[in-house]
């Protein structure tokens, strides 16, 4: 089998970012906790590859540490979405047409009426801004995405004859969902997981940018952009590099998602979104 180019490129981008985040635990070019006002807003140079920010911190180091926040938030949010959404979706499909199915689907509609920023606003109103807030808001937003996807895919499987055969063999809904349905929708979930991962990174950046996500001193790409905004005509590099980091990271994940889809189902290649 030939590996899709988009998968290779996308995975490479993603691995680089994951590696940078991991390396930042052991080493960064500069210490991001140390402020150095005399060195502030330096343009990129040999000493500071991507320049420094308004407090003299090394932007490259900040980006490495910021990657940790972005990745951790996105992973946790996808985890919440999958962990709650997939069982709900499978459960609804197993009880298709019943009251439980209806309740789960209407619950999904309800969450869909709240864009993730509104969820974040409500949680902040409740508990104050924090990185947990971002995780929870994006995670809740992910639940209906995975619930719908797994319900839809499971529904079409439930009408298939191999599921009938399993029912004739005396297997119950839980057994069938675990043994026959989940493995057959796993590919779909992985692809969607990659996409929600990238959405999570974008939303986390937005939430942190408006102050509803990661709080200082925790470095995050969104916060770096918030700091850079007022200084953009003086020090455009402060805004340029965190933004590019987001773009490349999200692009990598999306390419990986596309590539995975092609890999799992070459038939869909032409029709992909």
């Amino acid at each position, binding site marked *: 089998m030939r590996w899709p180019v988009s998968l290779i490129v996308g995975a490479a981008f993603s691995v680089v970012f994951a590696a940078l985040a991991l390396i930042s635990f052991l080493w960064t070019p500069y210490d991001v906790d140390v402020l150095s006002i005399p060195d502030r807003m330096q343009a990129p140079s040999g000493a500071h590859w991507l320049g420094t920010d308004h407090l003299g911190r090394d932007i490259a180091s900040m980006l490495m540490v910021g990657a940790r926040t972005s990745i951790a938030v996105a992973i946790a949010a996808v985890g919440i979405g999958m962990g709650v959404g997939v069982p709900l979706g499978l459960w609804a499909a197993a009880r298709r047409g019943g009251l439980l199915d209806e309740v789960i689907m209407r619950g999904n509609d309800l969450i869909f009426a709240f864009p993730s920023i509104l969820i974040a606003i409500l949680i902040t109103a409740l508990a104050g801004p924090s990185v947990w807030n971002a995780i929870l808001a994006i995670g809740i937003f992910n639940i209906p995405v995975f619930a719908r996807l797994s319900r839809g895919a499971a529904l079409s499987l439930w009408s298939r*004859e191999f599921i*009938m*055969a399993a029912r*004739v063999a*005396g*297997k119950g809904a839980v057994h069938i969902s675990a043994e*026959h349905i989940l493995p*057959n929708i796993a590919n779909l979930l992985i692809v969607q997981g990659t996409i929600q991962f990238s959405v999570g990174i974008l939303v986390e950046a937005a939430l942190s940018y408006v102050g509803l996500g990661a709080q200082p001193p925790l470095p995050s790409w969104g916060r770096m952009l918030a700091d850079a905004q007022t200084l953009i005509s003086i020090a455009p590099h402060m805004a340029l590099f965190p933004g590019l980091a987001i773009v490349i990271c999200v692009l990598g994940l999306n390419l990986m998602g596309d590539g995975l889809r092609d890999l799992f189902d070459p038939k869909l290649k032409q029709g992909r979104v």
Partner: protein
Amino acid sequence: MSLLDVRNLSLRVGANTLLKDVSFRVSRGEIFGLVGESGSGKSLTALSIMQLLPDGMHQSGTIALDGEMLSDLSEREMCKRRGRDVAMVFQEPMTALNPLHTIGQQVAESIELHSRVGRREALGKAADVLERVGLGHIPLTRYPHELSGGQRQRVVIALAIALRPKVLIADEPTTALDVTTQAGILDLLSKLVREDGMAMILITHDLAVVHDMADRVAIMEKGRVAETGVTSQVLKAPGQDYTRALIAASSHAPLRPPRDGTQVVMQARDVVRDYALPRRNPFSVRPTFRAVDHVKFELRKGENLGLVGESGSGKSTLTRALLGLEPVQGGSIELGGKLMDMDAARDLRRRIGIVFQDPFGSFNPRHTVARLVAEPFHLLDRRPSKAEQRAAVGEMLESVGLNATDMDRHIHAFSGGQRQRIAIARALIIRPEIVVLDEAVSALDVQVRAQILDLLAELSDRFDVSYLFVSHDLSVVRAITDRVLVMKDGAIVEQGDTAQVFAKPSHAYTRQLIDAVPKLPI
């Protein structure tokens, strides 16, 4: 001079040859049958004449219509010929029409594309054409989803013949339809050919249909024409082994000793199944639809019982209820005197196995054959060890004509016929008393179908198992069952010994069904 002349038509994709030197001629007013099993290239031949092949196919040879080389025309020129000079009717009426356009619009579109008429005039002509195909009573403003399968196929025919083309290609036009509907469509097609003097190419896998309809026939095998000739001669005295094999398989009946067991293994008493329909408005009572209406029958040990009905007759619903997969609203189903329902315990469920129609959809693609065939072991109180299961699966695979070594492969490595053998192995692995065969051979080509029928006959003797043979195909039911139930609108309208029912049907519907089936003269 013949109207359509196909010479040395070859088709390939990359290194694969799909058609090789296909040649035939069709004259005005003639019905020409193109017969073959799946993959023989008959549909590709049709698409070549229409010049509607998928991208990436390389075509050689010539196709001439009324002296004009279709194969040399530009796409633009060809667009002017399609629908006007040569038109096509497709197999699947459920998807062949645009769901968002009314039937009037869709027929009018054919007319508007090829003549300078306004919308109103085109719709007027469309109404005439729909009248011709027997849909005069249906308003032009209906959408496809409001029509039955047979009616939709009439719309597809209407938009194909709207401009009285010189050649009409009908690709398996009745395969997706019930037998009684099929008879109507075939009558309509021959009437249209007669009236308009057009030529028709009738593509089918069914030799009996060709016998009834076609003046001349070409038998296709693996992308080549095996034999061409006048239909009656080809069917009476085939010149090729392949044709002979096809004809033999089409009317094949397995040899098996007649059974007359007395012990009843399954009994249905006044079974009723009602479905709740959506409310018409929020305040009305929920209407119900009675899918199974007071059905009673018994199945005896070692017997082969047929259950025949057209789509919507309720046979699938009844089958699911018999398997304990659907609740019933009245009556009872008993296996060996014990009640079979949704809550039936394993000791009851293990008495009945199932083989489905679709050789591709009835297996989890992610499991090995060993795991697939071993699934019913779940119903045993003492689950055999892995080694015992493998031994049993291996033995069973050999019994159905496969190798024990096949058990470690995945299902996609097998052909349709092999998959049905695996499905049979799965149904029999825990030695049930009853196996339900739900359209189990309907998706198979005739030769494979004959082999599977032989296998089933052999296994029924060997394992002393009773079959409930659910099918819409009367010829198959006739070939393999001892007794038959005829179902219509949820009720059993007739039951009795198969030979007797077919020889002397007592119910009008049964007679209509039997008369509608095209037969080979043997």
